[in-house]
């Protein structure tokens, strides 16, 4: 896949679907998520990507490894998108994708993108989406530490 410096809205990744939902070992790119939601009627695209950090409470993290209850995770993501569209009436399209399996430091594990005619709704929607995803979607991450420090299943506390 090749992008010019000035990326036009690609037709290759367009769809009549309102949502692009995926929980899989192949995470779509930020550009693909953005292109999915982009639309001539929309002046705003907001995105959020969660990436693997190299540290947790002083321990060096080597990677995260994700497990998911895939059909239910995709169903919950769809439910979150429905809730978001009800809450933020201007939202046009949403992409919500999450990785499974290993996610090395610096790589994205989750990407959210949404579009709306005006900016406020997209930005607030993306915050709503990541909060809801962390609260509702049945996905688990194991954090792996350097050396003999093993690994632990994490828990979203917020």
């Amino acid at each position, binding site marked *: 896949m090749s992008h010019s410096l000035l990326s036009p809205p690609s037709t290759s990744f367009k769809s009549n679907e309102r949502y692009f939902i995926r929980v899989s070992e192949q995470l779509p790119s930020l550009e693909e998520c953005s292109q999915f939601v982009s639309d001539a009627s929309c002046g705003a695209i907001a995105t959020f990507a969660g990436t693997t950090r190299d540290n947790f409470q002083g321990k060096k993290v080597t990677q995260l490894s994700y497990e998911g209850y895939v059909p239910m995770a995709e169903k919950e993501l769809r439910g979150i998108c429905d809730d978001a569209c009800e809450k933020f009436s201007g939202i046009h399209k949403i992409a919500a994708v999450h990785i499974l399996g290993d996610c090395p430091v610096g790589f994205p594990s989750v990407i959210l993108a949404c579009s709306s005619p005006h900016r406020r709704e997209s930005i607030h929607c993306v915050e709503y989406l990541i909060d809801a995803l*962390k609260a509702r979607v049945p996905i688990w991450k194991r954090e792996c530490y350097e050396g003999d420090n093993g690994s632990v299943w994490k828990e979203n506390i917020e």
Partner: protein
Amino acid sequence: MISIQVLFFASAREAAGDISKKCIELTPDEANTSSLRRLLALEYPGLASMVKDEENLTLALNEEYVTRGQVLALKDGDTIALIPPISGG
């Protein structure tokens, strides 16, 4: 007897001895989520403390969360997933 499918994820999967999926038979008396928790605790001692604690392990029935405190009837062909605290994102 009815037959349901139980799915184990993450720490619950490991606590059960790395079992991901198990078909379980229930008598009509046992055909509810509360009895299922008791049966799973007996069958998988490593899972016992977790599966008996609703704060720690949520159930999903046919891909819908079971609300805390709720006891749902189970019928033949249902799928129950054991959902330890989630950590997506």
